[in-house]
């Protein structure tokens, strides 16, 4: 099992939801309106007058074999327009209850 943390520009909300549905990912945790800033080029998302845009984030725990497909789709989503932005990070799950 792996945990995948996806942070994305709010304008990608529907696409991320659809992506989960298509890939059969049922379980996830979702945060709306989160702030953040990209490591290299990503603009700040602060919901302020200066940086009006905001991010949302989703954390999903999926079987190992699904991780690559998900990352591949995330990459394609990012390719639509680099400035909008979506990122995914993967952790190992050691235990579940």
């Amino acid at each position, binding site marked *: 099992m792996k945990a995948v943390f996806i942070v994305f520009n*709010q*304008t*990608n*909300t*529907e*696409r991320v939801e659809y992506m989960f549905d298509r890939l059969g990912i049922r379980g996830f945790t979702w945060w709306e309106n989160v702030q953040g800033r990209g490591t290299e080029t990503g603009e700040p998302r602060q919901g302020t*007058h*200066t*940086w*009006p*845009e*905001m991010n949302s984030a989703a954390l999903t725990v999926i079987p190992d074999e699904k991780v690559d497909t998900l990352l591949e789709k995330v990459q394609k989503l990012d390719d*639509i*327009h680099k*400035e*909008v932005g979506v990122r995914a990070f993967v952790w190992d799950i050691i235990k579940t209850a």
Partner: protein
Amino acid sequence: MSIYKSAVNNPITTLMIFTAVIVMGIYSLVQIPIDLYPEIDAPFMSVMTTYAGANAADIETNITKPVEDAMNSVDKLKEVSSISYDNLSVVFLEFEWEANLDEIMNDVRTMLDGVYSNMPEGVDRPVVFKFSTSMMPILFFAITANESYPGLEKIIDEKIVTPLNRVDGIGSIFTVGSPGRKIYVNIDPRQLDAYNITLEQIGSIIGAENLNMPSGNVKMGKTDYQLRVQGEFTESDQLKKLVVGNSGGKPIYLKDVAEVNDTIKDKTMDERINSEVGMRMLVMKQSGANTVSIARDVNKQLKKLVKTLPPDIQIEPIMDTSDFIRGSIKNLSQTLMWALLFVVIVVLVFLGRWRATFIIALTIPISLIVSFIYLYISGSSLNVISLSSLSIAIGMVVDDAIVVLENITKHIERGSTPREAAIYATNEVWLAVIITTLVIVAVFFPLTLVGGLTGVMFKQLGWIVTITVSTSTLAAISLTPMLASKLLRLRPKKENIAKFGYNNIIGKALDKVDDFYEKSIRWALFHKKVVMLLALFVFIGSIFLAVKFVKTDYMPMTDESSLNAAIELETGLRVEETAKIARRIEGIIEERYPEITLISASSGADDEGSFSSMFSATGSNRINIMARLVSIEERSRSVFEIADDFRDQLDQFAEIVNYNVSTSGGMGGGDNTVDVEIYGYDFDVTNKLANDIKLRVSNINGARDVMISREKEKPELQVVLDREKLALHGLTSATVSAYIRNRVSGLIASQYREEGDEYDIILRLKEYYRNSITDLEAISIMTPMGNKIKLKELGEVKEYWSPPNIEHKRRQRIVTVSAKPVGVSLGELASQIRTEIEDIETPPEVFISVGGAYEDQVEGFLDLSLLLVLSLVLVFIVMASQFESFAMPFVIMFSIPFAFTGVILALFITNTTLSLIAGLGAVLLVGIVVKNGIVLVDYINLMRDRGYELYEAIALSGHSRLRPVLMTAFTTILAMVPLALSTGEGSEIWTPMGITVIGGLVFSTIVTMIIVPVMYAVFARRGERDKKQKVRKRFVFMDQ
């Protein structure tokens, strides 16, 4: 959930809500009455008091003064003036415009009750009149006839007036100058003396004979009969055979001592329409009724009714206010359509997308329609002011939608789905959109608070713009995102750009402009001092230009295709002589002015001292001419040119003492005059001064229609009775004066009835026996003892000059010398007159001041300056809160002086005077100009926060914001162009506003784009510049 998210997620609901608004708006539009101006409850009242037998001076001391003193304590009184005539006192009261007239009416009545008890006996109870716009006639007809002339009054009354009164919304219909039928019994006094009967005896016999009397019931058999004595005359001829006395056992018939004439009234007034005999008919509407629809109904009815008239009777309209209204409304509707077209073109050029243009253009009708709902609910009418307000608003309502749509487009181009782009893009800008709207509201809302006449005019403008702009903002953050989410598509980037496509031509051109502007800013930023000095120089130059060349004016004059002239001839002239002059003047009009289609001239007075004399002076020596011109499109000369030429013609008449040619048909535009007011008690002193001033003012270039308000002294015959002789014969002044009156003016003995109408039977001496002083002295008076003595025995008849009517203003005697500016501005004429009369020596008890429309002008401009200050403060408040800064509003407000520079230049180039309307345009500019600055400064702030270096941030912001600024400026400017260029009916009122706004906006937009960035750089120097250093100091722990 936010409004834009709900709107996007529920497109049908959103669409339905806006459809509902449109449906309600259209319903309101159908219901709203159409009128020229908003209904104005004019705060004027007049108190009329009659005191029979008193001359003007008596009236002044006994009636007018106490009334004026009492009125002085009524609340909200602005000014009191009065005229004391013989027998009649009229006190005019002017209140503050915002006063509640019902309350005041009560106060006035209470006060009058208080003074009435102290007035001399025989004074009639004072009558209070309230003025209202519904008293102004909306239709004026001229009726001419040949053979039917003697019976004209009855025919018109039965066949036209009565049926017309049934038209919905008609207040009243009056006829003027109608040849009323009278039955005159002209008595030969020598016969009377011979038969030893008096005129009064004949009068009472006629009265006693001409009646029907119920005389009880008679029961005969089974029936109950009513008994009547039937004595009424069934024909006027029966009068002749009336027995009026006995002489030697033989009856004396009326025909033996008098002539009975069943004829039309003696001529005191000569009414001609296009030189033919006739009368006039005035139609008044009920207050709040729709002028246009009433006029239409009346004209439709009239067409049917005319067919029932004898063929020689012609009815022609002299004045139809609805024509002007319809013309103005049509003209303004066209202006509105052009404005709409221009706005759409601007949006299309800048965006280059049909769908986006459609979405933005859709906010225009929606915002405008909401104002109809406002008009309907507030009970106002669709008028020149509301329509002009709409065309002012039209360029501003698209601004918000543009900002929202631009951001949505940006998101879509970055690959978002239209739906999400719509929600999140709107989320990013909605606050900014609301704040820029607040700035506009900050300028327009205070207009609704202005008092006075100007306030009445501006109230609708203020409300309509506030409402439409607010609605447009609401639509911009709900309807616009919803439509964008449905209509906009993500377009794949085109590979091959069409050679003549949008991107290749307009797109490239716009890019070039952007680049050029960025370069200019960069240059300016490194030459701040030069730029500022240059700006200062331009501003000071414009102020100099303003002081030197721009003239001030009150309200622009409008060409309403009508011309009125009031002409005064030598006092005491007989109406027959006056009419002769009138014919000559008509001849000149017909010859020189083919543009004039109808002339109605009335000479003399219907009933002197009657109610109508409050509105226009009448008298046997006065001619009133009303002329109608063909519509503006069909003539090359303006009504002003014709009026000016007409004045030159009138100058050549030696018989004419005074004349006043006016070009205003109704209210609103009005006659702008400068009045020199001479306060002083002594008639001789003030008369001399008035004549002196008139002479001097007449010499001023551009001063026309110079008039002295005080009437000339009238020739009068006075009967001076010897009281001792009266007492000897047992007579009093009252009985003798009644005898004289009955013989000269006439005694109404009874009424002759025919077909439901009553005609006076008037007894008097034959004219031959009452047209010289000797004749008057030969009048016989019957003493109580039954003896007859001649008037000569009791006193003498002397020729006098009676004192004129006495005018008061502010409770003092006043004479005004008024002058109308022709070819010069009102302000200019006022200052010239002022210098001209400066060196006139006045006795210490006399006081001279310059007033009139000029006074209103000064007052209006004072109101306007207050408004300007209020707007500036409000705009500052809005901006300071938005930017959380005191400096930023100043940076932006630096563009305001240059808006005024632009206004001055525009006025100078187009040779327009600075009227109140133009001044209003300048005030409105504050909001519109500041909006440009806000967009720019806001973005510079943003770029600074994003970490750009100061100059870089400024230059980049300029590059990025130029298009939105240009776009909103162009929509506002081009929306005003039709208003500024329109030449149709009523356009004179609003063109100055169009000119000022365009001038101010063009100039200030250009200057703003340079000055505001430079000022930003100047203000940002302190602290702002090195933000990093400042922050570092606050977090010292990192460097320790």
